[in-house]
Structure formats: C-alpha cells, structure tokens
C-alpha cells in the first residue's frame, strides 16, 4: 500500500505534464525509476506469498527481481538526479545523443534482462517441482541466459555512455544547448 501510495503521488504530480517527459531525459530516468519501484515492489509482495515463493525461491527469478528494484528503481533514479543536478553545479551539459543512448540502452537492456530471467526462473522452479532431474533445469533455462546476456550487454554499454556523459558534464566539452533550458522556460510561463 505505501508503495502504491508513493507511486501514485509521483505519477499524479506528473498529471497533465507527461508531455514534458519528451523534453527532459533526467525526468524520463526518474519516471522509469518510479515505474521500476512500483512494479518491483509489487512483484516483491507477490513473491512473499508462500505458494509463489515455493516456485521462485533459489531460482533466477530472484535475480531478475533484484535487478528490477536495485537497477530499475535505484539506479535509474540516481541517474536522473545526476543528470538534473550535475549540469547545475558545473554549468556543462551532456549531449542529447549521449543521453538518448544511455537511456534507451539501459531501459531496453534491463527490460530484456528482467523479462528473460523472470520466465527462465519460473521454468527452473516448475522443473524442480515436477521432480525432473536437476540438470534438466539447467538445460531449460539456457536460452533465457542468452537473452540475459544480450540485456546485460546493453546495460553495460549504457554505463560506458554514462561515463562519457559525466565526463562532458565535468571536465570535457559541454554540449552547445543545455537540455534543461526549455523545461525551465516552460515552468516560468506555467
């Protein structure tokens, strides 16, 4: 309930202003973070049911879940904060290309990662419940591990882009157009 309350509070704050998302990558990072928080915490509540825990406990589902919460929530929210605050401190901005690459590779990568491990982990758990030989659960999840690798690679590449962006916001050359400017102008007139 506190999760849904907190998420609803944030999302309702955004009401009528969802269009601003398109102008502000920091806001999009925060937005994904809130969605990650909402979905991950709700998922955690369901995992606490004993009937579901009997399937998912000790499987790769848990790994997907923890990435949804730690990565999809905390990391995205932190990135949003860094992209919003660091330019204010240094007066330098990262380029739209760098922001876009980081955001979309991280979003798509973590989505693939979480979905593949959720499905693969469920299959693992059901294999065990069905009393199949243990090695069958290893064979059955392998395709999902390949997808996890694809997602993980995208996430890793996005981190390199993040490092590049941080460098541009601190020591490197600033982008010509500060991305936050339009948003501020908008707020002044609102």
């Amino acid at each position, binding site marked *: 309930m506190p999760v849904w309350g907190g998420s609803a509070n944030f999302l309702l704050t955004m009401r009528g202003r969802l269009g601003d998302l398109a102008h502000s990558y920091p806001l999009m990072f925060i937005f994904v973070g809130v969605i990650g928080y909402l979905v991950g915490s709700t998922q955690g509540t369901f995992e606490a049911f004993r009937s579901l825990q009997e399937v998912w406990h000790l499987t*790769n589902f848990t790994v997907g879940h923890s990435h949804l919460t730690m990565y999809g929530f905390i990391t995205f929210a932190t990135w949003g904060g860094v992209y919003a605050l660091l330019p204010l401190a240094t007066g330098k901005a990262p380029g739209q290309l760098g922001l876009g690459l980081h955001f979309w590779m991280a979003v798509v990568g973590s989505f693939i990662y979480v979905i593949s491990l959720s499905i693969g982990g469920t299959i693992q758990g059901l294999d*065990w419940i069905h*009393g199949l030989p243990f090695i069958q659960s*290893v064979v059955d999840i392998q395709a999902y591990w390949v997808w996890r690798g694809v997602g993980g690679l995208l996430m890793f590449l996005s981190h390199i882009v993040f490092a590049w962006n941080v460098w541009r916001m601190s020591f490197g050359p600033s982008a010509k157009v500060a991305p936050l400017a339009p948003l501020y102008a908008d707020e002044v007139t609102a």
Partner: protein
Amino acid sequence: MNKLVLIAGGSSAVFACLALLMGVLPGIALSKTPPGPGVVPLTALQDEGREVYVANGCSYCHTQQVRPLAQDKIFGRPSAPGDFAYQTPELLGSERTGPDLTNVGVRQASTVWQYIHLYNPRAVVPESIMPAFDWMFQVLDHAPPGATPVPLPTAYAPKHGVVVPDHQAEALVAYLLSLKQPTLPGVSSDGSAMPMPGVSSATAAGASTAASTAENTPASGSVSAASGYDAAKGKALFTTNCAACHQANGEGLPGAFPSLKGDAAVNDADPTAQIRTVLNGLQGRNVGGVAYSSPMPAFGDMLSDADIANIIDYERSSWGNVGTPVTAARVATERAKGK
C-alpha cells in the same frame, strides 16, 4: 547545526537498533545452538577445502540448505539449526544454478568422480555449465609416487601426460565429501517421518509429465507393463541418481565407473546382486575384469523400494540389456535381509 546532529544521530541510532535486532541478537542466539547429533568439526584439510570453496565462489551457484519441500527431498532431509554448528559463517547460498550440496558427501561419495568433475564437469555431466577448475590440477609426464592420476575420459584428457590433483583440489574434495547429513532421530533421510514412504506425489506427477513429453523413452524391451514399471520415471530416476557416473548411455567411464551395458549382474535372471548393489552400494569390487577404486553410494536410505525397482527395470531394459524385470516387493525382500 543541531538539526545536523539530530539527523545524523537519529539515523545512526535507527541503524544501530536494526543491526542489533537483525544481526547481533540472532547471532548470539544461533551461537548457543548445540551441534546436532552426529555433527562433527571439520578436520584441518576439510577446513582448508572450505576456504577454497569460499574463495572460488562455489556458493554463488550451490546452496547448502535443504528446505522442507517435496522438491528438495532429492538433496536430503530438511536442514536443522544444529547441522551448521561448525560451519560459521554458514554457506547457505541464495541460488541453485547448480544442485544443493548439503549432502553431497553421501550422494556422490566417489573421490574419483569429484576429481573428474572438478577438472572438467562436461566429462561426467555433458550438459553441465559449471566452470572447469582445471587449474587446481597439474599435468605431469608421470604420476609421482603415492599420487593417483585422475582417470579422465580420452576426449577430456590432455594429449600428453597424466592429471594429478594439487593440494587445493585435495582440500576442496575433502571438504565436499565431509558434507554429509547425519540422520536425525525420527526423521528418515528423505525428510519425512518414518517409515520410508514412496516418492512424493509431486515427483510422481512430474514423472508422468515427463512421460508425455519424453522423446527418447526407451522401448520397454523385455520388461512388461504389468510389472508396475514406468519407463519415463525409471529414466528420470536414473538421470538424477545414476547417470553422473554410469552416464546416460549406460557405458560408464572406462577405468573409472563400470558400464551397465551388457553387465553380468544387470542381465542376470537372478536380480539379487543388482538389487543389493543399489541398496547397499559397492566398493573395491572387480566388475567385468576391471578393479574400480571409487565407491558406489548406498541408495537404500535415499530411495524407496518402488524407485529402486524402477531404476533397476530401466537398466535391465535399456542399452540392449535383457534382464528380467523386478518388483518393488522383491526389493523390499532384499532390504529386509539387511546388509
């Protein structure tokens, strides 16, 4: 400034309270848990092996906790607090990419198997994704006196020389073989109340699921359906309990594990020897003219009569074997005779 003290002090106090409640107090309570009956401290070598286990991150993929659930019965009885008396910090693990190791010293007691598997897991379990720990072995021209080379299958052995475990591997295997669950009074080794029941209904349901999907279910051969033999279940039980050594094709590994294909006991009209071997294990016996050093574990405490009959019938009807089928009642008779 006062606010800063309040914020920093307050959050520190909350953290300290939580650490006390969730870490310190349970730690004190657990340290007072007496060792379970039969739980003994590790020897110096086993303790060293435990360090190797930790250093190589074995617990990232292997748990050491058996849950009181039907699907965990293959790993032993449910873990009890006293089991961990000499295993601090406990290596419970949080994920089973590989199987649970709580009772691996009983399930896979063969030192030779452990060495082959550690050197290259694919040599004994073709589908395994476990990393090869071959750096814990030395490749030498000749085995030094007193050392026994690991009998690797040709496909996995180095082109020249012999493979000898180094000290790390010896310590690790000593630790793995020390992982044995002592029986708790009133609890059978499969975790249910005495006496030994059949396999859980979940396992039976799974086996029938496997029956409908298995593509390579062997033809029943000489075993008639009337004997209560379930080919798919027999195959699943064989894969879980026997294939690691005797291999899925029944041929074992030359020099390490005997072949069941064309084996005299498996094709003998009198199943006594085969039943007794599965029930009580076998060690240091000459099979088909070859002396095998590694012990076969006793499955009497791990499997029900019906399961053992299913496994034996699977072996007797697969890979060209033509043994007569056995029944669970026949297994029960041999079990009653004792060792």
